[in-house]
């Protein structure tokens, strides 16, 4: 089995890129691959807890928690997240907070990398 690292830069709401990333990560981990997720830019808004799932909007909290339970490592860019007014106390538990070198280190140890750009 391989290691897949996905960098996601799209916002939780506004495109379906984030939703796609959640489904792709789930499919990979269900096949037995190791998966790492890096949030940067507008994707960091997905680290916020207590998201309300309105049917008109895609949702991140539930799939993120499921991925964490399956052993997916998820890390959000601390600077990008804090700049958006989200503090660690407001964030989904078990999501790591770190800087961009975390992403590069995971890339270094990955068999495949998917970099899903922002808006």
């Amino acid at each position, binding site marked *: 089995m391989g290691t897949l690292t996905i960098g996601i830069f799209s916002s939780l709401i506004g495109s379906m890129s984030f939703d796609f990333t959640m489904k792709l990560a789930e499919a990979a981990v269900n096949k037995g691959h190791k998966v790492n997720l890096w949030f940067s*830019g507008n994707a960091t808004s997905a680290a916020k807890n207590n998201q309300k799932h309105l049917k008109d909007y895609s949702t991140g909290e539930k799939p993120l928690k499921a991925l964490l339970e399956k052993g997916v490592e998820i890390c959000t860019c601390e600077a990008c997240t804090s700049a958006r007014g989200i503090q660690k106390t407001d964030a989904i538990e078990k999501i790591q907070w770190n800087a961009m070198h975390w992403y*590069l280190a995971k*890339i270094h140890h990955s068999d495949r*990398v998917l*970099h899903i750009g*922002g808006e």
Partner: protein
Amino acid sequence: MAHTKLAFISQRPPYKSENPKLAITHTIAYQIVEILLDEGETVVPTLCFIGEGVLGCLKDQKAMENYGMTSTETHLKNALLVDVDVLVCKEDLERFGITEDKLLDAEDMGADKRLQIVPFESIQKEIESANHVLFF
């Protein structure tokens, strides 16, 4: 694998989105990645500007005055200062009528590196030789 070669491609105009800044800051992060790697392991980045991305290489940007934020120019000068190879697509510069004298450098910061204006063919070779390519 001891060395991982990464090609960061910045293809969007500065300030319209966050992407160009993130391309540069993610590239610069190679400087401290070794604290998370084993001894002897390194990440070697190349930062390439293509398409509208080349607009981020102009000098005398006024981002602090106009937006109250660090300019793409400053981020890029920091990249040169930490010895990142920065390639700028020659054909795209010509398309925008940008001559070399309009491009930034980081001489005032003491950087040894300068922007490298190269044909797209050279950037394509960087992409092909990289272990991973990251489009911003």
